[in-house]
């Protein structure tokens, strides 16, 4: 066998291994990234969705945040305007995670059968009031 052919075989093995690792990787670690409406619709059609990890991007409903500092727990409701559902999370959230701010969140966790989303991770993008003030000034000028 020519060395070039041998190399091609070795290369094929490596490329195959990479492809396999990638397919397996996506299968095992891929997470749905949904809006609340998509989640409500999909989980109604397919109840197994309640058992897998999900990510949801939405905004926090103002006035819905309640904190229990003694156990570092925070409960809130998220919405995309059409659908909303409650979320519970134990862990640290930014100081600005309050009802005064407009908060966009990406939450990760499981959507329980009782309709409560149990988050294992909350990434909050607080629509900064400082930037908002700035934008108003610039817009008004």
């Amino acid at each position, binding site marked *: 066998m020519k*060395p*070039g052919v*041998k*190399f091609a075989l*070795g*290369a094929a093995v*490596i*490329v195959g*291994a*990479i492809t396999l*690792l*990638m397919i*397996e*990787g*996506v299968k*095992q*670690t*891929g*997470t*749905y*990234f*949904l809006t609340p409406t*998509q989640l409500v619709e*999909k989980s109604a059609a397919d109840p197994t969705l309640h058992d897998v990890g999900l*990510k949801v991007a939405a905004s926090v409903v103002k006035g819905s945040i309640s904190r229990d*500092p003694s156990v*570092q727990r925070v409960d809130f409701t998220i919405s995309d305007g059409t659908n909303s559902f409650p979320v519970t999370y134990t*862990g*640290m959230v*930014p*100081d*600005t995670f309050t009802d005064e701010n407009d908060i966009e969140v*990406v939450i990760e966790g499981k959507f329980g059968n009782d309709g409560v989303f149990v988050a294992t991770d909350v990434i909050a993008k*607080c629509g*900064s009031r*400082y*930037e908002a003030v*700035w934008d108003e*000034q*610039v817009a008004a*000028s």
Partner: protein
Amino acid sequence: MTLLGHFALWAAFLIGVWSAGLAFFARWQDRPELSLAIRRGSYAVCAALLVASAALWKGLFSHDFNIEYVAAYTSRNLPEYYLVTAFWAGQKGSLLFWAVVLGIFGALAQALTSNRFKDLLPYVAGVTNITAAFFIAVMLFGEGANPFERLSFTPADGRGLNPQLQNPGMIAHPPTLYLGYISLAVPFAFAIAALMARRLDAGWIIAMRKWALASWIFLSIGITIGMWWAYLELGWGGVWAWDPVENASLLPWLTLTAFLHSVMIQEKRGMLKRWNMGLIIGTFLLTIFGTFITRSGVIASVHSFTQSSVGYFFLGFLLVTAILSFTLLYTRWPDLEPEAELESLASREAAFLFNNLALVGIAFSVMWGTLFPIISEAVRGTKITVGPPFFNKVNIPLGLFLLLLTGIGPLIAWRKASAANLQRQFIVPTVTGLVTTVALLLAGLRDGWALAALGISGFVVGTIGQEFWRGVRARHVMHDESIPVALVRLMGRNRRRYGGYIVHVGIVLYFVAFTGLAFRTKAEVDLVPGQSTTIASPFGWTYELTHLGISQYSALNRQVSAATLEVKRDGVRIGTIKSEKRQHVDSFGNRLFEPSTEVGLRSDLREDLYVVYGGSPDGTERSHFVLQVNPLVAWFWIGGAVLVLGGMLTMWPGGPQVKTKRRAPVQAGYEATLTGMPS
């Protein structure tokens, strides 16, 4: 000053487009006498962009808050050195930074390249100038992308610099990464020039080799400092999150690393000519792709600039450049016939080929994972993301395979290695690797991946040690030099080879540090002053931490709440550790930005004790802490330094071989005829 800035941008843009157009016109009409004019275009673009940059810095330093960019990224109480870095803190300024550095590099490429390659230089000027012109076009025609825009009113104070950017790491991280990205335009320009001029020997590789090495060094520094910044500022105690923007900086590093290895095969054997062209074009395109990802907001990331339409300029540029470059490559395909074939799988060439395959494979999987949300949405209508587990699952095995090749490559001869050669070369490294593994097993390490990573690291260190030892011993015996002298001269006379080995040592240290992160310990606690908690180190001892209280004070441009903890290791007091919550304010005391956290850190060569103060509820001193013990983190920074030193050694100018060649004895009588001839 903004008028001057505007004017300078337009001047640079027009000269850039003109000189690029002229370069192609000169080729088409065969007018070589135009080449000097084209090359001078590079200097003119550089000069105009320097004027524009000076205008922006003038605005920043004079606190001219009527300029939108100055007001948006600085404030009166911002320390002066951050006025320098505010230049590239925002979208607009970083575009100008990019353009001006490209202008400087373009001019340097003209000035520093040997006259041997003068046929290539007009095209190099054409490519660097049109690229600079593109960046200027984004500023001039992009929506809200011009750094010289003025406001219709003048705010009393600016909005200040994002606190996460007020960190020594951030002074150096973006510019080094940009320098790496930008300097890649020069090797790309040489590749295109070689294709245009049909000068397809290894000449273009020699002409741009140092540029490629410099890019690689800058990218390495930028990525390492980025990891350091993430570790200190993002507060999650990790160095690499597989965030899209991080991945975007890794992609060109991977393909450039592949390129630096595969060009050696072209220089030595005349193989892989097409592959090398493709790699360098691809690497340049990846830098543009990275810029697109960072600025368009198509993929959510913690590092990115705000979303804007500017991203689509980059997408357009990416597509046009890709189509033009690969079409050009296709038209020159027959000229890039390889001069030799692979003779054996047991050869240096084959090891390099597998190295290239692994590096490009890693790059492909990283890109796939990064783009997966977009791909899955397009194909299946639902967005699916993949996180760190995907990247780790794919890249740990591939990374270890690559590490193994780092140890194997230098042991195998070019062309074809004999069985005797293989045996002679492999014994020491294999034994070193096995001894390392067994020693770790005896020490109690049971994690399979960690054992593999450290065992292979031992193998690579064995290879490098053997190479150094053989070289030193040969000099010691043949030239009767003492061991240290022999070592210095050995490295001095074979800079590429031994510099490369030192880079490999740096890579090994990275792998060791990554392995350490698998053993981190973590705890979250609430403490009132006086209360204590403990956390175990993976090395076996226990830390006891006691909350000493909260202090609040105002500093230069911020209000600080600092929590201090006393640290005892196995009962012995070793000091205190402090973590802060910071609220930045402007010079009138108005709050700016969200509160930020300053991590508390005690670092040594074995492990870091890492403390994040999570705040106290409602005026009490009861505090929430996240505690971590992160083993071997210091080796990332040491590995980075070793890597960079090795890289610098490979490209250090001059070298004895060159000198001896120049001073080769010339027979009397011949000298007169030889001088003045092209060498």
